[in-house]
């Protein structure tokens, strides 16, 4: 890939470090599919949630569903291959424990899976459905957008599918290519009536999933698949829920606000560290946790404090959810802004197979953006 190195060099002459790292990334990608582009930052669970154990994200999700099945006799779990644990082992052991009538495989039919769940939910059951990959959710797009989201509104709340939760693994995984890597949250964020949540790790995943399952609105729960195994931390073993629609300030800072969700939060935490070390810039990092509804207050308060903001997500730039955040910030924080709202995102192309290291908003691209924003 000599030509691309040259290209980078041309455009980015001054940042020799970027160049070096970019090339290394390229080289890694050739040799190793699994080079992950972030370092995981562990969460500290609240003491009040009681005893904890070391848990990775698929185990945390498993535990949440296990608790949901234990505590709600109307709850059922279904999806492609979930009876054997699912592709990512999230439902492992649940069928043995809770029975074949409560944890079962569905045929290969996403539209059917979601619609079946809506029906179940409308009739009073708690439906926890799995779409094997977020990339495969689109056959069910119509059911989610036109049925699930509007059931309550169009019936004047005579009927609703609030007890529906749709889980789907999303986002880049290092080697997923076009159809195992996408982050489709923005498509759904355009749909009032839905709630959308993306956890950044095991502790958050368990509490948020239980909240989604128990929430009285249909929820989409996108799980960054790269975190299933790589993210491991202390997670409360008992039942607990975490609030929906509430952002977390995962690192406090004063010079610039960095906003992300899912895997990207960890990228941003590393960026914050690098910015501190290299440019003596103090970053405040916010995980918005919920995409819909999103916590405008926390984000805007932070931006008013720092005067600068960068939003990063893996999905393409145009109409990515960052666009909504940016628009809100300029409206709410206009007089506080020291520089334009910055976005670092995937490109406006399909998710590429061989160019993934360039496409994702890597720490180097984010760091560069922080630098530009601070020196605006």
């Amino acid at each position, binding site marked *: 890939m000599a030509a691309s190195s040259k*290209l980078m060099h041309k455009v980015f002459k001054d940042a020799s470090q970027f160049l070096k790292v970019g090339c290394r990334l390229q080289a890694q990608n050739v040799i190793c599919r699994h080079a992950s582009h972030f370092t995981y930052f562990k969460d500290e669970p609240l003491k009040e949630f009681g005893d904890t154990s070391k848990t990775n994200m698929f185990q945390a999700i498993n535990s949440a569903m296990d608790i949901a099945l234990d505590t709600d006799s109307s709850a059922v779990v279904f999806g492609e291959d979930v009876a054997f644990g699912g592709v990512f082992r999230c439902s492992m052991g649940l069928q043995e424990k809770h029975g074949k009538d409560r944890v079962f495989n569905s045929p*290969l039919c996403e539209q059917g899976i979601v619609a079946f769940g809506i029906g179940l939910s409308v009739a009073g059951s708690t439906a926890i459905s799995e779409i094997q990959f977020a990339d495969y959710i689109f*056959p069910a797009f119509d059911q989610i957008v036109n049925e699930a989201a509007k059931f309550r509104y169009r019936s004047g709340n005579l009927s609703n599918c609030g007890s529906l939760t749709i889980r789907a693994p999303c986002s880049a995984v290092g080697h997923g*290519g076009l159809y195992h890597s996408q982050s489709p949250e923005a498509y759904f964020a355009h749909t009032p009536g839905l709630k959308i949540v993306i956890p950044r790790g095991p502790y958050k995943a368990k509490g948020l999933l239980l909240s989604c399952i128990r929430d009285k609105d249909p929820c989409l729960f996108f799980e960054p698949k790269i975190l299933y195994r790589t993210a491991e931390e202390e997670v409360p073993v008992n039942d607990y829920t975490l609030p929906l629609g509430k952002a977390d300030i995962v690192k406090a800072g004063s010079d610039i606000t960095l906003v992300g969700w899912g895997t990207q939060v960890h990228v941003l935490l590393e960026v914050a560290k690098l910015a501190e070390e290299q440019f003596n810039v103090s970053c405040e990092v916010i995980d918005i946790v919920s995409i819909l509804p999103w916590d405008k207050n926390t984000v805007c308060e932070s931006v008013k404090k720092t005067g600068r903001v960068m939003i990063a997500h893996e999905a393409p730039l145009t109409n990515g959810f960052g666009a909504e955040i940016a628009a809100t910030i300029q409206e709410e924080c206009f007089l506080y802004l020291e520089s334009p709202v910055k976005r670092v995102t995937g490109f406006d192309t399909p998710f590429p197979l061989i160019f993934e290291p360039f496409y994702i908003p890597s720490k180097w691209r984010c760091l560069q953006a922080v630098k530009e924003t601070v020196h605006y």
Partner: protein
Amino acid sequence: MFSSIQLTRNIAHLSPRTKKNGRLQLQKFLQSHGFASEASFETKPYKLHKLESGPSTHVSVTKEDALVIYRQMNTIRRIETAAGNLYKEKIVRGFCHLYSGQEACAVGMRSAMRKQDSIISAYRVHGWTYLMGVPVLGVLAELTGRKSGCARGKGGSMHMYCKNFYGGNGIVGAQGPLGTGVAFASQYKEEGGVCFTLYGDGAANQGQLFEAYNIAKLMNIPVIYVCENNGYGMGTSAERSSASTNYYTRGDYIPGIWVDGMDVLAVREAAKFAIEYATSGKGPLILETVTYRYSGHSMSDPGTSYRTRDEVQVVRQTRDPITSFKEKIINTELATPDELKAIDAEIKKEVDAANKTAKEDTEITMEEIAGDVYSNTLEPTIRNITPWNPLTHKRVGPALNLK
């Protein structure tokens, strides 16, 4: 000495019965002189749905064709072995689904296809790509994401294309309606072609397929739906996923044929029948080819949690499409073991060489990340926030379908 082809031609004008006698005599004559030019076999009976008569269970193959079939099936097997190894060496990006065990389906269909026929399938398509004319290197280099790949490394394992081969679909079931459209285009343009539209036993449950069936029958579109029933959709067996596993009957108003997908000649015969049926104005037909995949669903599935190792072994030993075909052609003296060995050696050489190049080849350059998003870009750049900004959009690929 006259060639067997000449002999066959010489009897072409005779009545079927005399012809058959003549062929048999010819076969005997040639066999008694140390080689056979053609051999006949009985296939397992087909099962028919809404058809008065089906393909002939009496199938024959010429030496020439037999050797081509043998070469094709073995090349696919070897490509898949190489693909599996490349994946294990972590040189393959994306997912990787192997076709080993299912070779007779593709090769049987391919040998019945005419130049105006096309095919579309799912993601298990390394073999088809090769059969449709892409050199082994084009397949393996696509897997490794290098520029000699048939899609220059942009598609990877699941997305390969060439003339009359429409890929390569990652979304299960999507190809059902797509193939129906391809077949309709042929009908509309009066090209006389059919489109083989392949899907698995798992995909057979996607709603899209039933929408396609309906429109195909409504308009009598020359599409041949082929359900490659390999027993499993990922970890779910056909019995557990499908209310009816008689996939050949699941088009209801569309006639269907069940065929032994491990018998390449039976598949070829059924495919010939289907082509004739679909192009005679009768519209769509469903073939169910019953087959087996030896490997796991994809490389990340060991393929042992939902079936026993024993089950796989039994199929390998009793139903393997290559072994059984090889036995047939050796027993009928269509080919000698030495001839086949020589072919094996050639295949090994070809695949080994391609494998080596596929590893050493370079990737396309960074500019191509912004290539071929559109045909006609109204905006000259692809939006992004990177050091490479602006990234100019460009057309790179030659559009095969527009040639």
